[in-house]
């Protein structure tokens, strides 16, 4: 049995949960889904539409707000009782916060950021990126079951998750959590002062990465954006350095965009960036490194010096 750990906040399911369900269905065998929180009727009913054997709800006031300690305690009890062969999770920030502690507590192996699994007899091989996606590794795991696996966002399609002919049964698990043992005290989630730039509405985006090298070089990217009628955006390191404001950042910690044209200048294409822009219709990559992962998802690519190519593009556009 594969146990999928769903993710919800305020009763709203994370879309990546459906990706983990799709991965579990493709792995073969029965699939169960665990849902943790408080007051979970709506998301439990939503999950019951999936083609799964059962939805197991752990409903506790102590789980109303996510905490690592609360989730580790609840899931350690649940996993020991259900004894699945595999536990699947979406590789979200929340999963990254508790899954390693859960696996360590149970003494079970954990493979993170997986993009594909291959089953051969009883052995499973996990495929995942290393070196920021510049290489792909095949990983084997040993140790007692279950093995914990987290899936890279977008590696499986949420709409590939099969729906059942009838709703799956929903069962409340009898797990007691000692609220006093939860050491993290969370406050309400918030957004920083409202974003002044809504990149999600932009038709064209020129985005810069480390390859721009210095803040004063942003000028040529701005000129190109102007010539194309595009918004200027950046990968995380540029915003970390303070060269552009955080609200211009595209990627898992910034905005998710889907413009007609996404032109990536000197962006190598770490997965944290790709998840924010791979929905763009046409992707152009200009990078001096022919092995940069950005070229794997680009429609058009130029390997070369952006400080020569960009001025030439501006000249061509202004002709």
């Amino acid at each position, binding site marked *: 049995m594969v146990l999928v750990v769903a993710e919800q906040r305020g009763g709203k399911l994370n879309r990546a949960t459906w990706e983990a369900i799709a991965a579990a269905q493709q792995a073969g065998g029965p699939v169960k889904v665990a849902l943790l929180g408080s007051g979970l009727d709506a998301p439990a009913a939503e999950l019951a539409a999936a083609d799964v054997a059962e939805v197991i709800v752990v409903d506790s006031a102590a789980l109303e707000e996510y905490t690592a300690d609360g989730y580790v305690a609840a899931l350690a009890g649940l996993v020991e009782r259900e004894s699945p062969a595999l536990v699947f999770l979406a590789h979200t920030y929340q999963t990254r916060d508790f899954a390693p502690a859960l696996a360590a507590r149970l003494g079970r192996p954990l493979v993170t950021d997986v993009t594909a699994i291959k089953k051969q007899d009883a052995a499973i091989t996990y495929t995942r990126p290393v070196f920021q996606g510049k290489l792909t590794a095949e990983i084997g795991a040993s140790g007692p079951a279950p093995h914990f696996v987290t899936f890279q966002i977008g590696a499986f399609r949420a709409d590939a998750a099969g729906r059942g002919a009838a709703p799956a049964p929903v069962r409340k698990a009898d797990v007691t959590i000692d609220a006093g043992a939860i050491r993290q005290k969370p406050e309400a989630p918030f957004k920083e002062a409202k974003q002044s730039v809504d990149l999600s509405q932009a038709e064209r985006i020129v985005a810069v990465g480390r390859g721009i090298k210095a803040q004063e070089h942003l000028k040529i990217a701005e000129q190109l954006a102007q010539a194309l009628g595009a918004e200027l955006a950046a990968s995380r390191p540029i915003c970390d350095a303070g060269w552009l404001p955080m609200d211009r950042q595209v990627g898992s910690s910034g905005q998710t965009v889907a413009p007609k044209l996404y032109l990536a200048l000197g962006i190598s294409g770490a997965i944290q960036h790709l998840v924010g822009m791979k929905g763009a219709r046409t992707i152009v990559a200009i990078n001096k490194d022919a092995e940069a992962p950005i070229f*794997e998802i680009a429609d058009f690519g130029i390997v070369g010096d952006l400080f020569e190519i960009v001025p030439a593009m501006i000249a061509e556009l202004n002709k």
Partner: protein
Amino acid sequence: MKIAVCIKQVVTREWQLRVNDAKTWIRDQDASFELNEPDAYALEEALRLKEKHGGEVVVCSAGPARAAQVIREAMARGADRAIHIESDALAAADAFAVADAIAAAIRDEQFDLVLTGLQSDDQGFGQVGVVLAQKLGMPHATIIMEVQVSPSSGSEPGSLRVKRELEGGWFQWMILPLPALLTIQSGINQLRYATLKGIMAAKKKEIRKVTPSSAPVDAPALRILGVHFPEKGKKTQMIAGSSAEAAKELIKRLREDARVI
């Protein structure tokens, strides 16, 4: 406050990766190395906390002899001393093995705060910090963008208020008691660089070398079966020629084929 910072030596981003003959890892004999970027932010945060609250910053690295390079650099930036768990096997070991080795080396030192980067630029499992917290019995919080400390006073134990980054521009403050472990997000602060004075001072600072004990045979473990360059998912049209020719051709294709400008 007594702060440990876990750092890792990784190959530089600029180094052209080459796969070893067995196709199980990179051929890094002639690679250049640097401090893992998120770890550099963790170190900077530790140095700032020490400046504000006093105490000591100890860097801890698990890796081969060459990791001494990043340990010296960290001490040149201001760390007071170091613990080097020296082992060739730990260079590409899984997170549990690394966390076990670090936990064994630092447990007796009774740190108030342990910082790590949120993940490494090479293996990128993003696990060592959280697994280490579990092994040390400390509460943890991950992907941290701000740290506020309320030091202990009298019988009141100290606590932290930290800003966690959630996805899509959301954040959340969280309070946790000391001692605790935090994984630090890149961009939490502005990095300092080593001064000449710092580099000179680092030469006199202590590096405690530790030999890791071998892991129990039944411990859960990951094994790299092979590495390869990724296949292209899309048919990418690569445009060749001089910069001027390529620029012209790209504009033409964006206008006529893709019709996006």
